[in-house]
């Protein structure tokens, strides 16, 4: 077998857009292939939505349960992908040298982060479609300004991504796995997702209201359930979390 000339150097980076698109596609594929990730991003939100809408477990206040629950589940979907899923995946990529190996490829670091964000957004779009379809089937009747909803989802994604990457880039992969799941569970219960915040004592309420998950679920509920205008307070809380989280992640993230 003659192979002469096959390996003759011809180096060069692919165009940036192609690199980022390829990276985002691979990351999304890896996520959708991972059973635990699917449990987190698809199964749990769907199950909670169906279960709590059809069985009267928690008193969700006046009106249809699904009108209260759907915005909360949308917030949960954003948290599961941007925070929990991204933290765990990135933590293990760091641990297994994937980030290190990619750092020696033509894809620049910011390109990798852009691809990760793109992959998170694609996953969220799939989640939003799924949750919306199921919620409609359960009799959901949303109101409000779609732009406000979009803005909440984007700022929520930024806030959770910053926190997720901060965790993945500073803790050991196993610690990230444990902590990200624990935080997911705690925020699911205490962040106004399925349990209204007014079930908690007053002092706890005002603190819990400052959590990114509460701001996101509360903002989405204001708009989608009550048809409010721009929920500036909640947008502000999310923006602060986003800036703090992303800045800290950029500052403290360790690639290996």
């Amino acid at each position, binding site marked *: 077998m003659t192979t002469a000339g096959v390996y003759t*150097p011809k180096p060069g980076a692919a165009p940036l857009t192609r690199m980022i698109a390829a990276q985002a596609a*691979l990351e999304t594929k*890896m996520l959708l292939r991972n059973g635990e990730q699917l449990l987190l991003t698809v199964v749990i939100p769907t199950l909670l939505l169906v279960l709590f809408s059809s069985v009267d477990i928690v008193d969700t206040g006046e009106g249809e349960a699904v009108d209260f629950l759907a915005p909360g589940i949308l917030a949960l979907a954003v948290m599961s992908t941007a925070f929990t899923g991204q933290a765990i995946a990135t933590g293990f990529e760091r641990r297994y040298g*994937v980030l290190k*190996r990619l750092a*020696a490829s*033509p894809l620049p670091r910011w390109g990798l982060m852009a691809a990760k964000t793109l992959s998170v957004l694609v996953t969220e779009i799939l989640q939003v479609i799924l949750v919306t379809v199921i919620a409609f089937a359960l009799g959901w009747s949303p109101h409000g300004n779609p732009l406000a909803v979009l803005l909440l989802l984007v700022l929520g994604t930024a806030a959770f991504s910053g926190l997720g990457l901060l965790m993945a880039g500073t803790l050991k992969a196993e610690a990230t796995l444990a902590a990200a799941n624990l935080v997911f569970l705690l925020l699911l219960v205490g962040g106004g997702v399925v349990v209204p915040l007014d079930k908690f004592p007053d002092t706890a309420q005002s603190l819990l209201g400052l959590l990114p998950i509460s701001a996101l679920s509360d903002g989405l509920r204001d708009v989608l359930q009550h048809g409010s205008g721009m929920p500036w307070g909640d947008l502000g809380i999310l923006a602060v979390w986003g800036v703090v989280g992303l800045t800290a992640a950029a500052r403290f993230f360790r690639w*290996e």
Partner: protein
Amino acid sequence: MRSDPVVQVQALVKRYRTKTAVDGLDLVAGTGITAVLGPNGAGKTTTVETCEGYRKPDSGTVRVLGLDPVREAAALRPRIGVMLQSGGVYSGARADEMLRHMARLHAHPLDVDALIERLGLGSCGRTTYRRLSGGQQQRLALALAVVGRPELVFLDEPTAGLDPQARRATWDLVRDLRADGVSVILTTHYMDEAEQLADDVAIIDAGRVIAQGSPEELCRGGAENTLRFSGRPGLDIGSLLKALPADCTAAELTPGAYRVGGKVDPQLLATVTSWCAQHGVMPEKISVERHTLEDVFLEMTGKELRS
């Protein structure tokens, strides 16, 4: 064929907390295959990872293809291929998937199918990375390093833990790379690997290069290589010396036992036997004692290479 250096390291110092991993290391590597040889913990990986841009020198300068690997990383990265000692692949990715992905990050990649075939990765099928055997993972890492058609490839212990067949396949690929004009820097603690592959060997110990040269030069630099034979006593040593290359020695140690010292190669052996034939001598018990890099290393450091 050795022209501009592909790697130039000057007075490199790299410390981790209190431990000095690299301690004033100088290394110049030209085109071709350069082996960085040394025991575990000698500073091989740190040196190579500094060249790859992963680590910032505490002091000293590093130039790879004329570029600063940290400050000019964007220009350098597409031109080099990197094989890490382990890992580097999504645990849920299949071998071909990861290889195709790395190809997509480059402008003129190799034919992925041909590379898969060449390295015997086709048998990996739909198996994800975490379930591949160690050998398959190694070969995938090698494929990832070359798929972008780089000018220079860094291989960090490319055959550690491979079975002999896989080892030979890796060596063959490295030789083909060299034949097509790709330069290779490889770290190893296998003597025979350095001897078989390298144009140039740098021996590292305790964070410094303690010797550098072609395998032949290094072996000659140590204790002399020796050819011994027996014949009838009293042969004309002066005549034998005339037939031999200028830098050789010859002596009759005990009556009938002869020793020739120098660069022992097939040519020398032929010279000695044809001299014997001309003088009607039947040489018996011809033996060749070649010094290996292993001996050289042991002499220089007093240490075993493998630990």
